[in-house]
Protein backbone atom coordinates (compact mmCIF):
# COMPACT_ATOMS: atom_id res chain seq x y z
CA UNK A 1 0.00 0.00 0.00
CA UNK A 2 1.48 3.32 -0.99
CA UNK A 3 1.94 6.34 1.18
CA UNK A 4 -0.66 8.23 -0.81
CA UNK A 5 -3.48 6.53 1.03
CA UNK A 6 -2.92 8.29 4.28
CA UNK A 7 -6.03 8.32 6.36
CA UNK A 8 -8.14 11.27 5.55
CA UNK A 9 -10.67 12.36 8.04
CA UNK A 10 -13.77 10.27 7.93
CA UNK A 11 -15.87 13.18 6.80
CA UNK A 12 -19.18 12.50 5.22
CA UNK A 13 -19.98 13.73 1.77
CA UNK A 14 -22.94 12.31 -0.04
CA UNK A 15 -23.20 9.65 2.60
CA UNK A 16 -24.52 11.81 5.41
CA UNK A 17 -27.23 10.57 7.76
CA UNK A 18 -29.71 8.88 5.42
CA UNK A 19 -31.80 6.86 7.81
CA UNK A 20 -32.08 3.16 8.17
CA UNK A 21 -32.87 0.09 6.14
CA UNK A 22 -36.35 0.57 4.74
CA UNK A 23 -37.89 -2.27 2.82
CA UNK A 24 -37.40 -0.53 -0.51
CA UNK A 25 -33.71 -0.07 0.21
CA UNK A 26 -33.26 -3.68 1.21
CA UNK A 27 -34.93 -4.78 -2.04
CA UNK A 28 -32.56 -2.56 -4.03
CA UNK A 29 -29.63 -4.03 -2.16
CA UNK A 30 -30.75 -7.61 -2.77
CA UNK A 31 -31.28 -6.92 -6.46
CA UNK A 32 -27.72 -5.62 -6.70
CA UNK A 33 -26.48 -8.70 -4.90
CA UNK A 34 -28.32 -11.11 -7.17
CA UNK A 35 -27.38 -9.45 -10.44
CA UNK A 36 -23.73 -9.06 -9.44
CA UNK A 37 -23.19 -12.81 -9.51
CA UNK A 38 -22.48 -14.77 -12.65
CA UNK A 39 -24.40 -17.98 -11.99
CA UNK A 40 -27.94 -16.55 -12.33
CA UNK A 41 -27.15 -15.33 -15.84
CA UNK A 42 -25.54 -18.58 -16.95
CA UNK A 43 -28.28 -20.71 -15.44
CA UNK A 44 -30.87 -18.53 -17.11
CA UNK A 45 -29.19 -18.86 -20.47
CA UNK A 46 -28.93 -22.64 -20.21
CA UNK A 47 -32.56 -22.91 -19.16
CA UNK A 48 -33.84 -20.81 -22.04
CA UNK A 49 -31.76 -22.65 -24.62
CA UNK A 50 -32.65 -26.07 -23.21
CA UNK A 51 -36.36 -25.33 -23.10
CA UNK A 52 -36.33 -24.11 -26.68
CA UNK A 53 -34.26 -27.03 -27.92
CA UNK A 54 -36.41 -29.60 -26.17
CA UNK A 55 -39.62 -28.04 -27.46
CA UNK A 56 -38.16 -28.11 -30.97
CA UNK A 57 -37.14 -31.73 -30.63
CA UNK A 58 -40.46 -32.94 -29.30
CA UNK A 59 -42.46 -30.97 -31.81
CA UNK A 60 -40.39 -32.29 -34.71
CA UNK A 61 -40.74 -35.86 -33.45
CA UNK A 62 -44.48 -35.66 -33.11
CA UNK A 63 -45.07 -33.61 -36.24
CA UNK A 64 -45.32 -36.83 -38.22
CA UNK A 65 -48.40 -37.86 -36.27
CA UNK A 66 -51.71 -37.17 -37.96
CA UNK A 67 -53.20 -35.58 -34.86
CA UNK A 68 -50.31 -33.20 -34.36
CA UNK A 69 -51.17 -30.21 -32.29
CA UNK A 70 -48.17 -27.88 -31.84
CA UNK A 71 -49.32 -26.35 -28.57
CA UNK A 72 -49.26 -29.77 -26.89
CA UNK A 73 -45.48 -29.88 -27.08
CA UNK A 74 -44.79 -26.50 -25.55
CA UNK A 75 -44.53 -27.75 -22.00
CA UNK A 76 -43.02 -31.21 -22.38
CA UNK A 77 -39.44 -30.03 -22.31
CA UNK A 78 -40.10 -27.84 -19.32
CA UNK A 79 -40.09 -30.88 -17.06
CA UNK A 80 -36.36 -31.10 -17.69
CA UNK A 81 -35.63 -27.41 -18.16
CA UNK A 82 -37.11 -26.62 -14.74
CA UNK A 83 -33.96 -28.10 -13.20
CA UNK A 84 -32.22 -24.82 -14.03
CA UNK A 85 -34.55 -22.50 -12.08
CA UNK A 86 -34.80 -24.98 -9.23
CA UNK A 87 -31.05 -25.19 -8.78
CA UNK A 88 -30.70 -21.43 -9.21
CA UNK A 89 -33.15 -20.89 -6.37
CA UNK A 90 -31.30 -23.30 -4.11
CA UNK A 91 -27.94 -21.66 -4.80
CA UNK A 92 -29.31 -18.18 -4.15
CA UNK A 93 -30.94 -19.26 -0.91
CA UNK A 94 -28.03 -21.22 0.48
CA UNK A 95 -25.33 -18.97 -0.95
CA UNK A 96 -25.66 -16.30 1.73
CA UNK A 97 -24.98 -18.74 4.51
CA UNK A 98 -22.47 -20.94 2.75
CA UNK A 99 -20.21 -17.99 1.94
CA UNK A 100 -20.60 -16.19 5.25
CA UNK A 101 -22.06 -13.15 3.51
CA UNK A 102 -25.04 -13.57 5.82
CA UNK A 103 -22.92 -12.12 8.62
CA UNK A 104 -22.63 -8.86 6.73
CA UNK A 105 -26.26 -8.84 5.66
CA UNK A 106 -27.74 -9.39 9.09
CA UNK A 107 -25.59 -6.79 10.80
CA UNK A 108 -26.96 -4.30 8.30
CA UNK A 109 -30.56 -5.39 8.79
CA UNK A 110 -30.77 -6.85 12.29
CA UNK A 111 -34.50 -7.39 12.22
CA UNK A 112 -33.75 -10.07 9.60
CA UNK A 113 -37.20 -10.76 8.19
CA UNK A 114 -37.01 -7.85 5.71
CA UNK A 115 -34.03 -9.57 4.13
CA UNK A 116 -35.98 -12.80 3.62
CA UNK A 117 -38.92 -10.91 2.20
CA UNK A 118 -36.74 -8.77 -0.06
CA UNK A 119 -34.81 -11.78 -1.33
CA UNK A 120 -38.09 -13.55 -2.10
CA UNK A 121 -39.30 -10.54 -4.08
CA UNK A 122 -36.03 -10.22 -5.97
CA UNK A 123 -35.76 -13.95 -6.73
CA UNK A 124 -39.37 -14.01 -7.91
CA UNK A 125 -38.73 -10.99 -10.08
CA UNK A 126 -35.66 -12.48 -11.71
CA UNK A 127 -37.48 -15.77 -12.16
CA UNK A 128 -40.38 -14.00 -13.82
CA UNK A 129 -38.09 -12.49 -16.41
CA UNK A 130 -36.47 -15.87 -16.92
CA UNK A 131 -39.88 -17.54 -17.20
CA UNK A 132 -41.10 -15.19 -19.90
CA UNK A 133 -37.94 -15.77 -21.93
CA UNK A 134 -38.20 -19.52 -21.42
CA UNK A 135 -41.80 -19.66 -22.59
CA UNK A 136 -40.94 -17.52 -25.57
CA UNK A 137 -38.15 -19.96 -26.41
CA UNK A 138 -40.55 -22.89 -26.36
CA UNK A 139 -42.93 -21.09 -28.69
CA UNK A 140 -40.05 -20.45 -31.05
CA UNK A 141 -39.11 -24.10 -30.70
CA UNK A 142 -42.44 -25.47 -31.89
CA UNK A 143 -42.77 -22.95 -34.66
CA UNK A 144 -40.78 -24.78 -37.35
CA UNK A 145 -42.86 -27.97 -36.93
CA UNK A 146 -46.08 -26.03 -37.06
CA UNK A 147 -44.92 -24.30 -40.20
CA UNK A 148 -43.86 -27.56 -41.82
CA UNK A 149 -47.34 -28.97 -41.33
CA UNK A 150 -49.01 -25.72 -42.32
CA UNK A 151 -50.71 -25.51 -38.96
CA UNK A 152 -51.31 -22.07 -37.53
CA UNK A 153 -49.89 -21.52 -34.09
CA UNK A 154 -52.75 -19.93 -32.22
CA UNK A 155 -51.61 -18.80 -28.82
CA UNK A 156 -54.73 -17.04 -27.68
CA UNK A 157 -57.27 -19.78 -28.36
CA UNK A 158 -58.53 -22.58 -26.16
CA UNK A 159 -56.28 -24.03 -23.54
CA UNK A 160 -53.12 -22.40 -24.82
CA UNK A 161 -53.16 -19.14 -22.82
CA UNK A 162 -53.68 -21.25 -19.72
CA UNK A 163 -50.74 -23.44 -20.62
CA UNK A 164 -48.49 -20.46 -21.26
CA UNK A 165 -49.46 -18.81 -18.00
CA UNK A 166 -48.99 -22.12 -16.22
CA UNK A 167 -45.51 -22.46 -17.65
CA UNK A 168 -44.53 -19.00 -16.44
CA UNK A 169 -45.90 -19.74 -12.99
CA UNK A 170 -44.14 -23.10 -12.92
CA UNK A 171 -40.73 -21.55 -13.54
CA UNK A 172 -41.31 -18.85 -10.92
CA UNK A 173 -42.77 -21.34 -8.46
CA UNK A 174 -39.97 -23.83 -8.85
CA UNK A 175 -37.34 -21.13 -8.35
CA UNK A 176 -39.05 -20.03 -5.17
CA UNK A 177 -39.29 -23.59 -3.86
CA UNK A 178 -35.56 -23.94 -4.43
CA UNK A 179 -34.90 -20.59 -2.77
CA UNK A 180 -37.02 -21.46 0.25
CA UNK A 181 -35.25 -24.80 0.71
CA UNK A 182 -31.87 -23.18 0.27
CA UNK A 183 -32.49 -20.50 2.84
CA UNK A 184 -34.05 -22.96 5.25
CA UNK A 185 -31.38 -25.65 5.09
CA UNK A 186 -28.47 -23.25 4.54
CA UNK A 187 -26.13 -25.81 3.01
CA UNK A 188 -25.93 -26.47 -0.71
CA UNK A 189 -25.85 -30.26 -0.88
CA UNK A 190 -28.71 -31.07 1.53
CA UNK A 191 -30.89 -28.35 0.03
CA UNK A 192 -30.11 -29.45 -3.51
CA UNK A 193 -30.75 -33.11 -2.81
CA UNK A 194 -34.04 -32.31 -1.08
CA UNK A 195 -35.14 -30.03 -3.88
CA UNK A 196 -34.24 -32.43 -6.67
CA UNK A 197 -35.61 -35.41 -4.81
CA UNK A 198 -38.94 -33.88 -3.87
CA UNK A 199 -39.66 -31.82 -6.95
CA UNK A 200 -38.30 -34.05 -9.69
CA UNK A 201 -37.81 -37.60 -8.51
CA UNK A 202 -40.81 -37.98 -6.24
CA UNK A 203 -43.47 -37.40 -8.93
CA UNK A 204 -41.79 -40.05 -11.06
CA UNK A 205 -41.81 -42.54 -8.22
CA UNK A 206 -45.46 -41.85 -7.57
CA UNK A 207 -46.23 -42.28 -11.23
CA UNK A 208 -44.44 -45.61 -11.22
CA UNK A 209 -46.47 -46.71 -8.25
CA UNK A 210 -49.71 -45.73 -9.88
CA UNK A 211 -48.81 -47.50 -13.07
CA UNK A 212 -47.18 -50.81 -12.28
CA UNK A 213 -48.37 -52.34 -15.50
CA UNK A 214 -45.14 -51.22 -17.14
CA UNK A 215 -44.46 -48.04 -18.96
CA UNK A 216 -47.58 -47.06 -20.81
CA UNK A 217 -49.23 -44.17 -19.05
CA UNK A 218 -52.89 -43.59 -19.45
CA UNK A 219 -54.21 -46.94 -20.58
CA UNK A 220 -57.41 -45.69 -19.13
CA UNK A 221 -59.79 -47.51 -16.91
CA UNK A 222 -62.68 -45.35 -15.76
CA UNK A 223 -61.31 -42.52 -13.67
CA UNK A 224 -61.19 -43.15 -9.98
CA UNK A 225 -59.39 -41.17 -7.37
CA UNK A 226 -56.79 -43.29 -5.67
CA UNK A 227 -55.09 -42.58 -2.39
CA UNK A 228 -51.76 -42.42 -4.16
CA UNK A 229 -53.08 -40.00 -6.71
CA UNK A 230 -54.38 -37.72 -4.01
CA UNK A 231 -51.07 -37.70 -2.20
CA UNK A 232 -49.35 -37.07 -5.49
CA UNK A 233 -51.47 -34.07 -6.30
CA UNK A 234 -50.33 -32.43 -3.08
CA UNK A 235 -46.61 -32.81 -3.65
CA UNK A 236 -44.90 -29.74 -5.04
CA UNK A 237 -43.47 -31.48 -8.09
CA UNK A 238 -46.71 -32.97 -9.31
CA UNK A 239 -48.56 -29.78 -8.48
CA UNK A 240 -46.12 -27.97 -10.69
CA UNK A 241 -46.75 -30.37 -13.54
CA UNK A 242 -50.46 -29.86 -13.15
CA UNK A 243 -49.93 -26.16 -13.73
CA UNK A 244 -49.00 -26.84 -17.31
CA UNK A 245 -51.59 -29.40 -18.27
CA UNK A 246 -54.36 -28.08 -20.44
CA UNK A 247 -57.46 -27.33 -18.42
CA UNK A 248 -59.69 -29.26 -20.74
CA UNK A 249 -57.88 -32.54 -20.23
CA UNK A 250 -59.70 -33.42 -17.10
CA UNK A 251 -58.11 -35.19 -14.22
CA UNK A 252 -54.88 -37.17 -14.47
CA UNK A 253 -55.21 -40.86 -13.75
CA UNK A 254 -55.92 -41.42 -10.10
CA UNK A 255 -55.83 -37.79 -9.07
CA UNK A 256 -58.62 -35.63 -7.84
CA UNK A 257 -59.81 -33.13 -10.39
CA UNK A 258 -57.89 -30.08 -9.22
CA UNK A 259 -56.80 -28.84 -12.60
CA UNK A 260 -54.06 -26.32 -13.23
CA UNK A 261 -55.46 -23.75 -10.84
CA UNK A 262 -55.47 -26.29 -8.05
CA UNK A 263 -51.94 -27.30 -8.93
CA UNK A 264 -50.84 -23.69 -8.73
CA UNK A 265 -52.47 -23.24 -5.34
CA UNK A 266 -50.77 -26.34 -3.96
CA UNK A 267 -47.38 -25.16 -5.22
CA UNK A 268 -47.99 -21.72 -3.75
CA UNK A 269 -48.97 -23.22 -0.43
CA UNK A 270 -45.74 -25.21 -0.30
CA UNK A 271 -43.71 -22.07 -1.00
CA UNK A 272 -45.47 -20.16 1.76
CA UNK A 273 -44.98 -23.04 4.19
CA UNK A 274 -41.26 -23.41 3.50
CA UNK A 275 -40.66 -19.67 3.68
CA UNK A 276 -42.49 -19.44 6.98
CA UNK A 277 -40.36 -22.18 8.50
CA UNK A 278 -37.27 -20.44 7.13
CA UNK A 279 -38.42 -17.16 8.70
CA UNK A 280 -38.92 -18.82 12.06
CA UNK A 281 -35.47 -20.32 11.90
CA UNK A 282 -34.01 -16.94 10.98
CA UNK A 283 -35.67 -15.13 13.84
CA UNK A 284 -34.91 -17.56 16.58
CA UNK A 285 -31.52 -18.94 15.72
CA UNK A 286 -28.03 -17.52 15.57
CA UNK A 287 -26.37 -16.57 12.28
CA UNK A 288 -22.95 -18.15 12.39
Amino acid at each position, binding site marked *: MSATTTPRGVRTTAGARTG*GPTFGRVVA*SEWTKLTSLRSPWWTGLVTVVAAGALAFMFATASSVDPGFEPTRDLATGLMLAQVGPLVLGVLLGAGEFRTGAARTTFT*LVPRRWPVLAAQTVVVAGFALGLAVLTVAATVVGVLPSAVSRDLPLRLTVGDTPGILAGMVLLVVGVTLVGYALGTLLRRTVPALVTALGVVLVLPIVLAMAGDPGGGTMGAAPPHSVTALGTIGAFTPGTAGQLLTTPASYGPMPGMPDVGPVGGGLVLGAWIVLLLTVAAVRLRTRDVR
Partner: protein
Amino acid sequence: MIEVEALTKRYGSTTAVDGLTFTARPGTVTGFLGPNGAGKSTTMRVVVGLERATAGTTRVDGRRYADLPAPLHAVGVMLDARSVHPGRTASKHLLAMAQTHGIGKARVREVIAQTGLEPVAHRRAGTFSLGMGQRLGIAGALLGDPQTLVLDEPVNGLDPDGVLWVRRLVRELAAEGRTVLLSSHLMHELALCADRVVIIGRGRLLADATVQDIVERSERAGAVRVRTTDPEPLARELLALGAQVVPQEGGVLQVRGTSVDEVGTAARRCGATVLELAAESGTLEEAYLQLTGDAVEYRTADTRGGAR
Protein backbone atom coordinates in the same frame (compact mmCIF):
# COMPACT_ATOMS: atom_id res chain seq x y z
CA MET B 1 -20.73 3.53 23.42
CA ILE B 2 -20.89 -0.22 23.95
CA GLU B 3 -22.12 -1.60 27.27
CA VAL B 4 -21.81 -5.27 28.04
CA GLU B 5 -23.48 -6.38 31.26
CA ALA B 6 -23.18 -9.84 32.82
CA LEU B 7 -23.07 -11.38 29.35
CA THR B 8 -23.19 -15.15 29.27
CA LYS B 9 -23.25 -17.29 26.12
CA ARG B 10 -23.47 -21.04 26.18
CA TYR B 11 -23.34 -23.45 23.27
CA GLY B 12 -24.72 -26.68 24.60
CA SER B 13 -22.39 -27.63 27.40
CA THR B 14 -19.61 -25.17 26.51
CA THR B 15 -19.66 -21.75 28.12
CA ALA B 16 -18.01 -19.34 25.71
CA VAL B 17 -18.63 -16.16 27.69
CA ASP B 18 -19.28 -16.14 31.43
CA GLY B 19 -20.68 -13.10 33.20
CA LEU B 20 -18.63 -10.56 31.24
CA THR B 21 -19.13 -6.88 32.08
CA PHE B 22 -17.30 -3.93 30.57
CA THR B 23 -17.92 -0.65 28.79
CA ALA B 24 -16.24 0.80 25.73
CA ARG B 25 -16.58 4.57 25.92
CA PRO B 26 -16.69 7.24 23.25
CA GLY B 27 -13.43 8.94 22.43
CA THR B 28 -11.36 5.93 23.44
CA VAL B 29 -9.86 2.99 21.64
CA THR B 30 -10.69 -0.06 23.73
CA GLY B 31 -8.51 -3.05 23.04
CA PHE B 32 -10.00 -6.47 23.49
CA LEU B 33 -7.44 -9.11 24.38
CA GLY B 34 -7.49 -12.74 25.27
CA PRO B 35 -6.11 -16.15 24.37
CA ASN B 36 -7.59 -18.08 21.44
CA GLY B 37 -11.04 -19.29 22.28
CA ALA B 38 -11.45 -16.84 25.16
CA GLY B 39 -14.75 -15.53 23.83
CA LYS B 40 -13.76 -12.29 22.13
CA SER B 41 -15.39 -13.01 18.77
CA THR B 42 -18.44 -14.45 20.48
CA THR B 43 -18.86 -11.30 22.54
CA MET B 44 -18.59 -9.13 19.44
CA ARG B 45 -21.12 -11.26 17.58
CA VAL B 46 -23.60 -10.90 20.42
CA VAL B 47 -23.05 -7.12 20.50
CA VAL B 48 -24.05 -6.86 16.84
CA GLY B 49 -27.04 -9.11 17.12
CA LEU B 50 -25.84 -12.08 15.13
CA GLU B 51 -26.09 -14.33 18.15
CA ARG B 52 -28.44 -14.30 21.07
CA ALA B 53 -27.09 -14.03 24.61
CA THR B 54 -27.94 -16.85 26.99
CA ALA B 55 -28.04 -14.30 29.82
CA GLY B 56 -27.07 -10.67 30.32
CA THR B 57 -27.37 -7.77 27.91
CA THR B 58 -25.34 -5.82 25.42
CA ARG B 59 -26.24 -2.27 24.46
CA VAL B 60 -25.02 0.09 21.81
CA ASP B 61 -25.74 3.77 22.50
CA GLY B 62 -28.11 2.65 25.20
CA ARG B 63 -30.21 0.36 22.99
CA ARG B 64 -30.22 -3.20 21.81
CA TYR B 65 -28.53 -3.52 18.43
CA ALA B 66 -31.72 -4.75 16.82
CA ASP B 67 -33.55 -1.61 17.99
CA LEU B 68 -31.18 0.79 16.27
CA PRO B 69 -33.00 2.61 13.48
CA ALA B 70 -29.95 2.78 11.22
CA PRO B 71 -27.40 0.16 12.26
CA LEU B 72 -24.86 0.98 9.55
CA HIS B 73 -24.64 4.57 10.74
CA ALA B 74 -24.46 3.62 14.38
CA VAL B 75 -21.98 0.74 14.32
CA GLY B 76 -19.35 -0.18 11.74
CA VAL B 77 -18.69 -3.89 12.00
CA MET B 78 -15.80 -5.96 10.77
CA LEU B 79 -15.94 -9.46 12.15
CA ASP B 80 -14.51 -11.79 9.58
CA ALA B 81 -12.96 -11.03 6.23
CA ARG B 82 -14.72 -14.08 4.86
CA SER B 83 -18.16 -12.50 5.21
CA VAL B 84 -18.23 -11.68 1.51
CA HIS B 85 -19.61 -13.74 -1.37
CA PRO B 86 -16.52 -14.73 -3.38
CA GLY B 87 -18.38 -14.32 -6.67
CA ARG B 88 -19.07 -10.64 -6.13
CA THR B 89 -16.72 -7.77 -6.91
CA ALA B 90 -15.60 -5.53 -4.06
CA SER B 91 -17.44 -2.51 -5.36
CA LYS B 92 -20.70 -4.41 -5.85
CA HIS B 93 -20.42 -5.83 -2.36
CA LEU B 94 -20.02 -2.35 -0.88
CA LEU B 95 -22.70 -0.94 -3.14
CA ALA B 96 -25.22 -3.53 -1.98
CA MET B 97 -24.38 -2.68 1.64
CA ALA B 98 -24.78 1.02 0.93
CA GLN B 99 -28.13 0.52 -0.75
CA THR B 100 -29.71 -0.95 2.36
CA HIS B 101 -29.40 2.43 4.00
CA GLY B 102 -29.84 4.57 0.93
CA ILE B 103 -26.20 5.60 0.88
CA GLY B 104 -24.99 6.84 -2.48
CA LYS B 105 -22.26 5.62 -4.80
CA ALA B 106 -20.08 8.62 -4.04
CA ARG B 107 -19.63 7.41 -0.49
CA VAL B 108 -18.79 3.92 -1.77
CA ARG B 109 -16.06 5.36 -3.97
CA GLU B 110 -14.79 7.42 -1.08
CA VAL B 111 -14.45 4.41 1.15
CA ILE B 112 -12.76 2.37 -1.57
CA ALA B 113 -10.21 5.13 -2.01
CA GLN B 114 -9.69 5.49 1.71
CA THR B 115 -8.89 1.81 2.17
CA GLY B 116 -6.59 1.57 -0.84
CA LEU B 117 -8.85 -0.82 -2.76
CA GLU B 118 -9.01 1.19 -5.98
CA PRO B 119 -6.79 -1.19 -7.99
CA VAL B 120 -8.93 -4.21 -7.10
CA ALA B 121 -12.37 -2.70 -6.78
CA HIS B 122 -13.69 -4.55 -9.82
CA ARG B 123 -12.16 -7.90 -9.07
CA ARG B 124 -14.14 -10.73 -7.53
CA ALA B 125 -13.64 -11.01 -3.81
CA GLY B 126 -12.79 -14.69 -4.11
CA THR B 127 -9.52 -13.71 -5.77
CA PHE B 128 -8.41 -11.40 -2.98
CA SER B 129 -5.38 -11.97 -0.83
CA LEU B 130 -5.78 -11.96 2.95
CA GLY B 131 -4.76 -8.32 3.24
CA MET B 132 -7.12 -7.13 0.51
CA GLY B 133 -9.96 -9.02 2.12
CA GLN B 134 -9.21 -7.30 5.40
CA ARG B 135 -9.26 -3.90 3.73
CA LEU B 136 -12.62 -4.74 2.17
CA GLY B 137 -13.96 -5.61 5.60
CA ILE B 138 -12.69 -2.33 7.00
CA ALA B 139 -14.20 -0.48 4.08
CA GLY B 140 -17.56 -2.00 4.91
CA ALA B 141 -17.20 -0.93 8.52
CA LEU B 142 -16.44 2.67 7.53
CA LEU B 143 -19.18 2.90 4.94
CA GLY B 144 -21.87 4.41 7.15
CA ASP B 145 -19.53 6.83 8.86
CA PRO B 146 -20.51 5.23 12.15
CA GLN B 147 -20.19 6.53 15.67
CA THR B 148 -19.01 3.17 16.95
CA LEU B 149 -16.64 0.64 15.43
CA VAL B 150 -16.35 -3.02 16.30
CA LEU B 151 -13.29 -4.57 14.64
CA ASP B 152 -12.19 -8.17 15.13
CA GLU B 153 -8.46 -8.48 14.38
CA PRO B 154 -8.37 -5.73 11.77
CA VAL B 155 -4.62 -5.87 11.15
CA ASN B 156 -4.54 -9.60 10.55
CA GLY B 157 -2.68 -10.15 7.29
CA LEU B 158 -1.86 -6.50 6.60
CA ASP B 159 1.60 -5.41 5.55
CA PRO B 160 3.50 -2.98 7.84
CA ASP B 161 2.15 -0.05 5.85
CA GLY B 162 -1.35 -1.28 6.43
CA VAL B 163 -0.78 -1.90 10.13
CA LEU B 164 0.41 1.68 10.51
CA TRP B 165 -2.56 2.92 8.55
CA VAL B 166 -5.05 1.11 10.78
CA ARG B 167 -3.33 2.44 13.89
CA ARG B 168 -3.60 6.02 12.66
CA LEU B 169 -7.15 5.45 11.49
CA VAL B 170 -8.47 4.17 14.81
CA ARG B 171 -6.66 6.88 16.75
CA GLU B 172 -8.16 9.52 14.52
CA LEU B 173 -11.64 8.03 14.82
CA ALA B 174 -11.35 8.02 18.60
CA ALA B 175 -10.05 11.58 18.58
CA GLU B 176 -13.25 12.54 16.76
CA GLY B 177 -15.22 11.23 19.70
CA ARG B 178 -16.17 7.83 18.30
CA THR B 179 -16.09 4.56 20.20
CA VAL B 180 -13.67 1.95 18.91
CA LEU B 181 -13.59 -1.63 20.17
CA LEU B 182 -10.92 -3.70 18.55
CA SER B 183 -9.49 -7.09 19.26
CA SER B 184 -5.97 -8.08 18.40
CA HIS B 185 -3.16 -10.45 19.17
CA LEU B 186 -0.42 -7.98 18.29
CA MET B 187 0.50 -6.71 21.73
CA HIS B 188 3.03 -4.13 20.67
CA GLU B 189 0.62 -2.71 18.14
CA LEU B 190 -2.25 -2.63 20.58
CA ALA B 191 -0.13 -0.93 23.20
CA LEU B 192 0.48 1.86 20.70
CA CYS B 193 -3.10 2.48 19.63
CA ALA B 194 -5.35 1.50 22.54
CA ASP B 195 -6.22 3.67 25.53
CA ARG B 196 -7.90 0.99 27.61
CA VAL B 197 -7.58 -2.75 27.44
CA VAL B 198 -10.11 -5.41 28.37
CA ILE B 199 -8.49 -8.80 28.89
CA ILE B 200 -10.63 -11.92 29.03
CA GLY B 201 -9.76 -15.54 29.52
CA ARG B 202 -12.03 -18.58 29.34
CA GLY B 203 -14.97 -16.24 28.91
CA ARG B 204 -14.31 -14.27 32.09
CA LEU B 205 -13.00 -10.78 32.66
CA LEU B 206 -9.39 -10.74 33.80
CA ALA B 207 -8.55 -7.05 33.61
CA ASP B 208 -10.16 -3.80 32.54
CA ALA B 209 -7.80 -0.86 32.87
CA THR B 210 -5.66 1.60 30.96
CA VAL B 211 -2.67 0.25 29.06
CA GLN B 212 -0.36 1.96 31.52
CA ASP B 213 -1.97 0.33 34.56
CA ILE B 214 -1.75 -3.11 33.08
CA VAL B 215 1.82 -2.71 31.94
CA GLU B 216 2.79 -1.74 35.44
CA ARG B 217 1.37 -4.97 36.72
CA SER B 218 3.88 -7.02 34.83
CA GLU B 219 6.52 -8.48 36.97
CA ARG B 220 9.40 -6.81 35.34
CA ALA B 221 8.01 -3.35 35.94
CA GLY B 222 9.75 -1.51 38.73
CA ALA B 223 12.82 -3.72 38.68
CA VAL B 224 16.38 -2.70 37.96
CA ARG B 225 18.55 -4.77 35.67
CA VAL B 226 22.30 -4.77 36.14
CA ARG B 227 24.89 -6.79 34.24
CA THR B 228 28.25 -7.09 35.91
CA THR B 229 31.49 -9.07 35.82
CA ASP B 230 31.14 -9.93 39.52
CA PRO B 231 27.53 -10.77 40.24
CA GLU B 232 28.10 -12.47 43.60
CA PRO B 233 29.73 -9.63 45.50
CA LEU B 234 27.18 -7.17 44.15
CA ALA B 235 24.29 -9.47 45.06
CA ARG B 236 25.55 -9.71 48.64
CA GLU B 237 25.88 -5.95 48.83
CA LEU B 238 22.35 -5.39 47.51
CA LEU B 239 20.81 -8.00 49.80
CA ALA B 240 22.45 -6.21 52.70
CA LEU B 241 20.56 -3.12 51.59
CA GLY B 242 17.32 -5.03 51.89
CA ALA B 243 16.67 -5.44 48.17
CA GLN B 244 15.33 -8.59 46.50
CA VAL B 245 17.82 -9.95 44.03
CA VAL B 246 17.10 -12.51 41.32
CA PRO B 247 20.25 -13.71 39.58
CA GLN B 248 20.00 -14.57 35.90
CA GLU B 249 22.27 -15.91 33.21
CA GLY B 250 25.24 -14.02 31.89
CA GLY B 251 26.02 -12.10 35.05
CA VAL B 252 22.64 -10.32 35.13
CA LEU B 253 20.88 -9.45 38.33
CA GLN B 254 17.27 -8.38 38.56
CA VAL B 255 16.89 -6.17 41.60
CA ARG B 256 13.72 -4.98 43.28
CA GLY B 257 13.30 -2.48 46.07
CA THR B 258 16.11 -0.13 45.16
CA SER B 259 16.55 2.62 42.66
CA VAL B 260 18.95 2.63 39.74
CA ASP B 261 21.21 5.08 41.57
CA GLU B 262 21.41 2.89 44.65
CA VAL B 263 22.46 -0.11 42.60
CA GLY B 264 25.14 1.95 40.90
CA THR B 265 26.64 3.18 44.13
CA ALA B 266 26.45 -0.32 45.66
CA ALA B 267 28.48 -1.65 42.73
CA ARG B 268 31.12 1.01 43.30
CA ARG B 269 31.32 0.11 46.97
CA CYS B 270 31.99 -3.58 46.33
CA GLY B 271 34.23 -2.99 43.32
CA ALA B 272 32.08 -4.76 40.76
CA THR B 273 32.42 -3.57 37.16
CA VAL B 274 29.04 -2.53 35.78
CA LEU B 275 28.45 -3.39 32.12
CA GLU B 276 24.73 -2.53 31.91
CA LEU B 277 22.45 -0.71 34.32
CA ALA B 278 18.87 0.35 33.62
CA ALA B 279 15.36 0.40 35.02
CA GLU B 280 13.11 -2.27 33.53
CA SER B 281 9.76 -1.39 32.15
CA GLY B 282 7.23 -4.03 31.51
CA THR B 283 5.46 -4.64 28.23
CA LEU B 284 1.83 -5.28 27.58
CA GLU B 285 2.77 -8.70 26.25
CA GLU B 286 4.39 -9.74 29.53
CA ALA B 287 1.54 -8.42 31.61
CA TYR B 288 -0.92 -10.18 29.38
CA LEU B 289 0.94 -13.50 29.49
CA GLN B 290 1.14 -13.34 33.27
CA LEU B 291 -2.51 -12.47 33.64
CA THR B 292 -3.77 -15.09 31.24
CA GLY B 293 -1.28 -17.79 32.14
CA ASP B 294 -3.90 -19.99 33.75
CA ALA B 295 -6.64 -19.10 31.38
CA VAL B 296 -5.06 -20.32 28.17
CA GLU B 297 -7.38 -22.75 26.45
CA TYR B 298 -4.94 -24.27 23.98
CA ARG B 299 -1.47 -24.99 25.24
CA THR B 300 1.44 -26.00 23.04
CA ALA B 301 3.96 -28.57 24.17
CA ASP B 302 7.45 -27.35 24.94
CA THR B 303 9.00 -27.04 21.48
CA ARG B 304 12.49 -28.08 22.49
CA GLY B 305 11.47 -31.72 22.55
CA GLY B 306 10.15 -31.57 19.00
CA ALA B 307 12.29 -29.56 16.70
CA ARG B 308 15.85 -30.17 17.71
